C-alpha cells in the first residue's frame, strides 16, 4: 500500500497533491464538525455536573446523540430573513465565521507531519485568519438590523482590538525565544519533558508562566467566552450578534465559536505546553496534544460556568491597565535576556 502510494507520488505528483488536499479538507471538516457538536455536549454535561444535575441524558446513552438531534433540529428550521436586512452580508457572515475557523486548522500541526499545509509563517497565518472571524461577527450583527446586534457588534470589535495587542505582545516575546514562526519547529524545540515547555522556560524569561496566563485570558476574550462574552451577553443584549439568526445561520455561528475555542486551545498547547510532546519525554504523539487541548477547553468551560460576565470598561481596564503593561514588561525582560545570553 505504502509503496504503491510512493509509486503514485513519484509518477503523478499532481494527482497526489489533489488527493491529499481532498483528504485534508474532509478531515478538517469532520474534525471541526465533530468537535463543535461534541464540545456542546461536553459543555452541557460539565455545566450539569457543576450545577449538581446530570445534563443531557435522554437522547441516546448519556445523551450522546443529543448533538445529532440538535443539529437535525437546526438544519430543518426555516432560515428566516427579517425585513430590511442586508441580505448578502446577513447570509455571508455565518459562513465567514465558519470559513475562517476552518482556515486556521490548515496550518495547525497535530503531530509529526499531521498537518494539512505546513507554512513557515504558520503562526502569523493563524492570527490573520482568527482576526477575520471578528469581521464575520461584525457583519452579521450589522446586517441583521437589530439594535441589540448593533451594540454587540461595536462591543465585539473593540474587545478584539483591545485583546489582540497583549496577545501579540506575548507572542512577540515568545518568538524571541523560539526564533521561528513555524509551529512545527516551535513544538520540536520543546521536546524532552515538561521542563522544556515554553511555559516553564524561566531561563528565557522569568515571567513566562505569567505570559501563558495572559495568552490564555486573551484567548478567552478573542473567542468571546465568559467572562468576556460581551458580544452574546444574553442578559443584556438578548443574544447579541446572533439575535436575528435562526436555523443553520445560528448553527454556523455556534459551531464557529466552538471551532475557535479549539483553535485557541490548540495554539496554547503548541506555543506553551509542548504540543504533542509528552510531559515526561516518552511516547510523543498527537494523543498528548489532544489531551492538553481538551483539558484546556474543559478549563474554559469551567470558567464559563463559574464566573459572572465582566462589563465593557472592566474588560478594557483589564486589557490596558493589567495585561498590556505586564506583557510589555515581559517583552522587555525577554529581549534583555535574549540579548545577554
Amino acid at each position, binding site marked *: 500500500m505504502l509503496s504503491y502510494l510512493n509509486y503514485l507520488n513519484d509518477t503523478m505528483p499532481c494527482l497526489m497533491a489533489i488527493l491529499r488536499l481532498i483528504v485534508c479538507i474532509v478531515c478538517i471538516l469532520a474534525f471541526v464538525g465533530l468537535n463543535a457538536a461534541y464540545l456542546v455536549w461536553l459543555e452541557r454535561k460539565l*455545566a450539569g455536573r457543576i450545577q449538581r444535575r446530570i445534563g443531557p441524558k435522554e437522547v441516546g446513552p448519556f445523551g450522546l446523540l443529543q448533538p445529532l438531534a440538535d443539529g437535525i433540529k437546526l438544519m430543518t428550521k426555516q432560515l428566516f430573513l427579517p425585513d430590511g436586512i442586508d441580505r448578502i452580508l446577513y447570509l455571508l457572515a455565518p459562513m465567514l465565521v465558519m470559513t475562517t475557523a476552518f482556515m486556521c486548522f490548515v496550518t495547525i500541526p497535530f503531530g509529526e507531519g499531521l498537518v494539512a499545509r505546513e507554512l513557515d509563517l504558520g503562526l502569523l497565518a493563524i492570527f490573520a485568519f482568527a482576526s477575520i472571524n471578528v469581521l464575520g461577527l461584525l457583519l452579521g450583527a450589522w446586517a441583521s438590523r437589530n439594535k*441589540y446586534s448593533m451594540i454587540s457588534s461595536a462591543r465585539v470589535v473593540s474587545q478584539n482590538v483591545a485583546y489582540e495587542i497583549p496577545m501579540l505582545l506575548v507572542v512577540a516575546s515568545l518568538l524571541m525565544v523560539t526564533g521561528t514562526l513555524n509551529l512545527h519547529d516551535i513544538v520540536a524545540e520543546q521536546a524532552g519533558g515538561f521542563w522544556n515547555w515554553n511555559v516553564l522556560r524561566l531561563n528565557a524569561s522569568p515571567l513566562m508562566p505569567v505570559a501563558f496566563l495572559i495568552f490564555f485570558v486573551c484567548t478567552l476574550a478573542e473567542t468571546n467566552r465568559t467572562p468576556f462574552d460581551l458580544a452574546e451577553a*444574553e442578559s443584556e443584549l438578548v443574544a447579541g450578534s446572533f439575535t436575528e439568526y435562526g436555523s443553520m445561520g445560528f448553527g454556523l455561528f455556534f459551531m464557529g465559536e466552538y471551532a475557535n475555542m479549539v483553535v485557541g486551545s490548540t495554539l496554547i498547547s503548541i506555543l506553551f505546553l509542548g504540543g504533542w510532546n509528552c510531559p515526561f519525554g516518552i511516547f510523543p504523539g498527537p494523543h498528548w496534544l489532544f489531551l492538553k487541548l481538551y483539558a484546556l477547553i474543559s478549563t474554559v468551560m469551567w470558567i464559563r460556568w463559574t464566573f459572572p460576565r465582566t462589563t465593557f470598561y472592566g474588560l478594557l481596564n483589564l486589557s490596558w491597565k493589567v495585561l498590556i503593561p505586564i506583557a510589555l514588561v515581559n517583552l522587555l525582560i525577554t529581549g534583555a535576556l535574549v540579548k545577554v545570553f
Partner: protein
Amino acid sequence: MNAEYQLPEDECFVLNLGPQHPSTHGVARIKLTLDGEYICKAEPVLGYIHRMHEKMAENRTWPQFFPNTGRLDYLHALAYNQNYACLVERALAIEVPERAEYIRVITTELNRIASHMVWYGAFVLDLGGFTPLLYTFDDREQILDLLESVTGSRLTFSYFRFGGVPNDIDDDFIAGTKTFISRMRERIKMYHALITKNVILINRLKDIGFIPAEMCRKYGASGPVARGAGIDYDVRRNEPYSIYDRFEFEIPVYHEADSMARYMVRMDEILQSLRIIEQAIATLPAGPIMADKVPKLIRPPKGDYYHAVETARGRLGMRAVSDGSAIPWRLKLRTPCFSNMLIFGEACRGMLLADAVALFGSLDLVIPDVDK
C-alpha cells in the same frame, strides 16, 4: 457615572428593553434612549401584567381576597398574606393566638429567605453567572419543601387566615427547619467565597447604581434599597407588628448606596432571618392556632385601616376602607416595587447598559408587584 448626561435627541436611539427581555424577569418594559451604550433617558412602561387587584377586592368578600394577596409579589407571598390578615384583624380587633403568631413569623421568614434566594440567583444571572442560580434554587427548594408540607402550596401559599393559621406545624417541620438553618449558614459562606469576593462581581457592583438616602425618601423607597443607602428603617422594628419585637435581630445597614451595598444588605438579611427563625422555634409556645372569636361573616366596622409589613422588597402597606359590609369598599395596595421601579428610571441615567441591568437586578423588582 451618574452625572447628568445630555445629548441632542437626534443622535440617540431608542431601545425597548422588554417587555420580553431576559433581564427584566417578567414583563417590564423600559424605554431607553441610548447614546451608544450610555443611557440618556429611561422611562419604565408599566401595565403588562396589570390585573386590577384593587377592583377585584371590591367585588368579593374580605376572606375571598386572600388568594389574591399571594399573587402580587409571588416570591414573598406569605408577607402579603400576613399583611392582609393583620389589616383585617386590626379592623376587627382580633387577638391572634401566640402559637399562630410564631408560626406566621417562622413561615414568613422562611419565605423571605426563599425570596432572597430567587433574587440572588437571578441577580447573578443578570450579571452573566449562570451557576449560582442553580445553587440558590437548590436552597430555595429546601424551603419550599418545608413550606409545602405546612401550607400545601409551593408559591401562592394563601396560608394565613383572619385570627390565625389553618394548619399547625409539626415536629418534622421543626426538625427540617433546624437542619435547614445550619445548612443555610454554610451555604452563605460558600456564596460569599464564590460570588461576593469575586473580583469581576465587585468591579461590576462597587460604586455603581448610586441611590442616595434623600432620593429614597423622595421616591418612598424602602427595604434593602433604603437600607443600602444608610437609612436604618425596617418595618419589623420601627413599627413592630406581629411578635417581631420579641426577637433579637439586627437591621443590616450599609452606607455606600451602591449596588454592592444593596447586595450586602440582602445577604446579611438572610442571616438575620435565620436568627429570627431560630429564636422563634426555640420559644414556640403550645396552644391554639386560631382565635376563638372570629366572626363567621367578616364585616369590619366602618372606617379606614392601614397596616404595613416588611416584605423582602420593602414596606408593603395596605389601606382598607370598610363601609361595614361584607365586601371591602376600597383596598389600596402600596407595593414596595412601585417606588423602586421609578427610581430605576431615575438612577440609571448616564449609565452603561450593562450597569443598568446590574442596577435593575440589585433593586430586586417583581413586576406583578409593580403592576398590581
